[in-house]
């Protein structure tokens, strides 16, 4: 006959639903008998990575005023600024493969440089001529961004919010097209689909630039294009290496704005 005693109440140690037994005792055994300290740690064999996963991308479209009023020193400084932009980006190996640059110039509005990895970017030598179709150029830039985003999506490429960076020294000569562009920019920005910056060179219609975006336009100090592009490069480097949820704090644009 079995004893009629009730079974002992389970304590934490022998409770069947808590931790496995060895998790309590094993460290003690290890300590007392020095068992595992002497055995070498076996390494995990080499793992391989999904080769089809591309690096995340950060698209940046430069929309540059090359109208007649940019002639002379202005266009020369802008070209020098682009060279400084390339140099600054090429010091950062991560940004080189993540940042993609395209250039739209206006007058007339045209795609001067289609998207290219920052590491392979060779700045064009821009010439100043013609009028200022700023509206058409912005429309073209916005189309370029949305086509690019679709391409990223279709190919499973993760991406950061694209940047559109406008530089102008005048007022649009293509009528009210800029108003349509402004509507698109504002709706993209409020949906956080894009980041838009406008920089006015001396003589630019700053009030009009202010109407393009919710972000206040920057007024370029003299012809400090170089400083401006170094700032842009630093900002893109930060963004292209940011992680989920991270608010990227951009440097103050004091070096090149009034």
């Amino acid at each position, binding site marked *: 006959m079995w004893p009629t005693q009730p079974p002992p109440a389970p304590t934490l140690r022998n*409770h069947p639903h808590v931790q496995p037994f*060895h998790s309590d005792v094993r460290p003690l055994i290890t300590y007392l008998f020095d068992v595992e300290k002497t055995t070498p740690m076996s390494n995990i064999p080499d793992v391989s990575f999904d080769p089809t996963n591309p690096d995340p991308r950060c698209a940046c479209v430069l929309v540059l005023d090359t109208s007649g009023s940019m002639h002379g020193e202005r266009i020369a400084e802008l070209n020098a600024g682009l060279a400084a932009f390339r140099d600054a980006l090429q010091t950062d190996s991560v940004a080189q493969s993540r940042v993609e640059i395209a250039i739209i110039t206006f007058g007339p509005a045209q795609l001067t440089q289609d998207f290219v990895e920052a590491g392979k970017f060779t700045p064009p030598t821009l010439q100043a001529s013609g009028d200022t179709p700023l509206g058409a150029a912005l429309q073209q830039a916005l189309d370029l961004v949305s086509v690019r985003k679709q391409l990223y999506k279709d190919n499973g490429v*993760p991406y950061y919010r694209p940047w559109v960076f406008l530089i102008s020294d005048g007022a649009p000569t293509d009528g009210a097209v800029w108003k349509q562009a402004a509507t698109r920019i504002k709706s993209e920005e409020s949906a956080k689909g894009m980041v838009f910056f406008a920089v006015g060179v001396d003589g630019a219609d700053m009030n009009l630039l202010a109407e393009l975006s919710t972000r206040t336009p920057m007024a370029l100090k003299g012809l400090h294009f170089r400083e401006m592009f170094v700032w842009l490069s630093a900002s893109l480097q930060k963004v292209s290496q940011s992680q989920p949820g991270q608010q990227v704090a951009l440097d103050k644009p004091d070096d090149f704005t009034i």
Partner: protein
Amino acid sequence: MRWRIAKASVIGTGHIKAEMPCQDSHYVRVVGDALIVAVSDGLGSAERSEVGSALACEIATDYVAQQLTQVAPNRWQKLLGASAPAEPAYADILHAAFVRARQALEDEAARQTVALREYACTLLMIVVTPQQWHSLHIGDGAMVGIYADGSVQTLSLPDNGEFINVTVPLTSSEYRDHLRAQHRNEGLTGVAAMSDGVQPMCINFKTGAAYPGFFRPIIQWLQSHDQLSQLDDALHTMLDSDKLRQKSDDDMTLVIALREP
């Protein structure tokens, strides 16, 4: 039911450079037949997200463990004729665990008089029992199931929104709309959970598929390696290796658990 578990969180080189702490956390518990895994990634933008992720993992996991302990009859109760209770409502328990974890963050924020968003973190959890698994997930990171034939399958995908550097954390006021629950009635051989630092190496961006070449070597190593106290160290060493570092400068967390053969 015993589990062989390797788990590690390593600080990202980007975090070291920026003088940020490791903001990833993980927590694993085994209760009876059930395995509970939690992984959380504190957001880089949040001042105290390393506290947030640790707190979220611990509160949520302990809550689930406590609920499962209460419902599962132990062997003595069975002997005394206690009828087996209904299968616990895992999905509800997980959901309540997330609500509690968020509440804990709110309480901590109130105690420290800082904004709740400073504790922003993702949270992914899975409960694996012999016949089924249930997961709940907010933010990025991923969970992968390991099957008896050695194949791997993504169970819960990251939610990045449109942009890679944007995700909705547990501390968001809209967090309820972004909770993603999954479950299937199948017995998994094992499970892996990771933060977004590891994700690009082994989860396909386009299809969401888990990449076997990443998981198989770890699974085989785990199956053949029985020095249980070294598993975490070995995994830590792997995550800390140059090969993985080159691929990610973010914090990396990986938890892999296999049923004992």
